[in-house]
């Protein structure tokens, strides 16, 4: 075709240019992320000898099982508490006027800018037996002995909920903002009390938000390392720390990578299950 030469055939070269531009980022991703990840997967079935022996430990080793159970329990509790508190905050944000909303959003996002490390030490200081929380409670005469709030599971839970709360609030708030307030008004006009309108109309409509926020918080909680290590006082061993110990101290690479792989596969499975019930993209506002 004669006309082809005079059409502005920028298509091919320009396409190539795009590839060139994203190349460095892509190369970094492959080299620093995908390759090590593949290495982890391979190591989990080859070290110390090829086979699924490492994965068998999931069913035989009590220490592995105990760590997994602790991890699941703490992640579940964190999710529950974060959802409960997050729901209240998101609900209040939705009801507030726009200047209050901005202020609340700022407060919710504030912890994001403070390192988890700093926050953990701050919690230790606050919650220790001579910290301001216990001191205050004793001064008021509410308790006689300091409560064991830190260096145990309670401390881990408090710290983790604090970190997870913004995720829960933001996801729930995004969902709640999409709910037509007139539906609640309609329910009231049809004879529902405030509570009935909430329970029968509003709450069911926030189900996608609850599932989404719940999954997000649960998945993120599974991999927590710094917070349980510091606030648990060495007594609360979650899977991430267990993996670190295997790799750094006992040098059992096979076991460590197996647990990492298990964690990753569980997360992927959870996401897949979630995508079956929900439109994940819409949930996160994409």
């Amino acid at each position: 075709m004669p006309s082809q030469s005079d059409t502005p055939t920028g298509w091919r070269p320009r396409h190539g240019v795009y590839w060139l531009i994203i190349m460095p980022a892509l190369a970094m991703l492959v080299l620093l992320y995908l390759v090590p990840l593949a290495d982890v997967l391979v190591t989990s079935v080859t070290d110390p000898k090829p086979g699924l022996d490492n994965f068998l430990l999931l069913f035989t080793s009590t220490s592995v099982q105990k760590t997994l159970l602790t991890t699941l329990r703490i992640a579940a509790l964190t999710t529950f508490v974060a959802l409960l508190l997050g729901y209240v905050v998101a609900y209040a944000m939705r009801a507030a006027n726009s200047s209050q909303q901005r202020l609340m959003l700022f407060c919710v996002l504030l912890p994001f800018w403070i390192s988890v490390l700093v926050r953990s030490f701050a919690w230790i200081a606050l919650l220790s037996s001579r910290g301001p929380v216990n001191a205050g409670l004793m001064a008021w005469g509410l308790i006689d002995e300091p409560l064991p709030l830190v260096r145990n599971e309670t401390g881990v839970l408090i710290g983790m909920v604090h970190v997870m709360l913004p995720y829960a609030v933001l996801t729930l708030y995004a969902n709640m903002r999409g709910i037509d307030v007139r539906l609640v008004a309609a329910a009231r006009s049809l004879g529902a009390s405030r509570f009935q309108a909430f329970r029968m109309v509003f709450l069911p409509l926030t189900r996608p938000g609850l599932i989404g926020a719940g999954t997000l918080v649960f998945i993120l909680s599974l991999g927590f390392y710094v917070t349980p290590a510091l606030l648990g006082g060495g007594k609360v061993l979650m899977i991430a720390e267990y993996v670190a110990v295997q790799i750094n101290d006992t040098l059992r690479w096979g076991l460590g990578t197996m647990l990492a792989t298990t964690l990753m596969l569980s997360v992927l499975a959870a996401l897949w299950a979630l995508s079956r019930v929900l439109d994940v993209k819409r949930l996160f506002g994409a």
Partner: protein
Amino acid sequence: MLSPVPEPLVRFANVRKSYDGTVDAVSALNLEVARSEFLTLLGPSGSGKTTTLTMLAGFERPTEGRIFVDGEDVTDVPVEKRGIGMVFQNYALFPNMTVAENIAFPLRVRGVSRGEMNSKVMRALSMVRLDGFGDRRPQQLSGGQQQRVAVARALVFEPRLILLDEPLGALDRQLREQMQYELKHLHQRLDVTMVYVTHDQVEAMTMSDRVAVFSTGALRQVDEPRRLYEAPASLFVARFLGESNALPATVRQHDGGSCAAALATGETVTAVMPVRCAPGSAVHLVVRPEKILLGKAAQASPNRFAARIAEVTFLGDQTRLRLVAFGADDFIVKLANTAGQETFAPGTEIDIGWQAEDCRALAE
């Protein structure tokens, strides 16, 4: 304004509502709704129709005044205790429930037994001609069908009063007309009281027993559609309902219900004066375009003037003439398309006139 029956179902007594404390969204409202009546609140955008309705429903509290339903002061009764059904403009169907569950909602919150609930829902569904749609989700219905579900949901608990806020606003013309008919039919069959909001005057005329016309928060007139059209009490109402020719004039003298007024161009006109105005005050003389007599017919009328035809538009059922008269060029005449109707050509000089009772002297 005459009150329709001795004991009205709804009574607004001196109700005022201000959202921000400076501007009144509704002011000095005194309005009664009779039992079994279909009353329409009509008015331009922002005139306070929705505000009036939401105060009656219980979503907003009047800044001043009281609202009575069935003789009981409901001003401080919460929404859910008022027993008033409401249909919203956007339908407000619950997306997490099926059609049947939506309709059952008001019964469920009232603790109605399952058996009774089912039979009532079935009856409501067939009342709005949606038998067999009970298991669908609202999102799976067309706009008109969703509208009908909303109506069924407001009817099912047999409220003493149903409020509808521009319920047909989102529908296309044809569906609108069909739904107007269906709603009116339901109203007659169920003998229920309905208060309806619209800014469409044709819709108001079609459906209502009486129409309440609002402008900028004030109730201007409440009357039967026909009287509202034939006997508007103000220039606003005359202009808002149908077309009018309005000629500025000054009152010269009045006696009883009529007056003589002088036009700016000097002619004196005799007109009906529903609201008494002192001699010397400015009024508008309002004549409907279809009441104008032309040519020979005009010569016999008491009010007779010279005019020239500027434009002729044939509209099928009627012909519209635009005339140059009284120093302006926007005098409108409508002629019904009847047998033997004369035809007119632009540029023709012609006599126009009207009967004294067809002309009303109205203040702003």
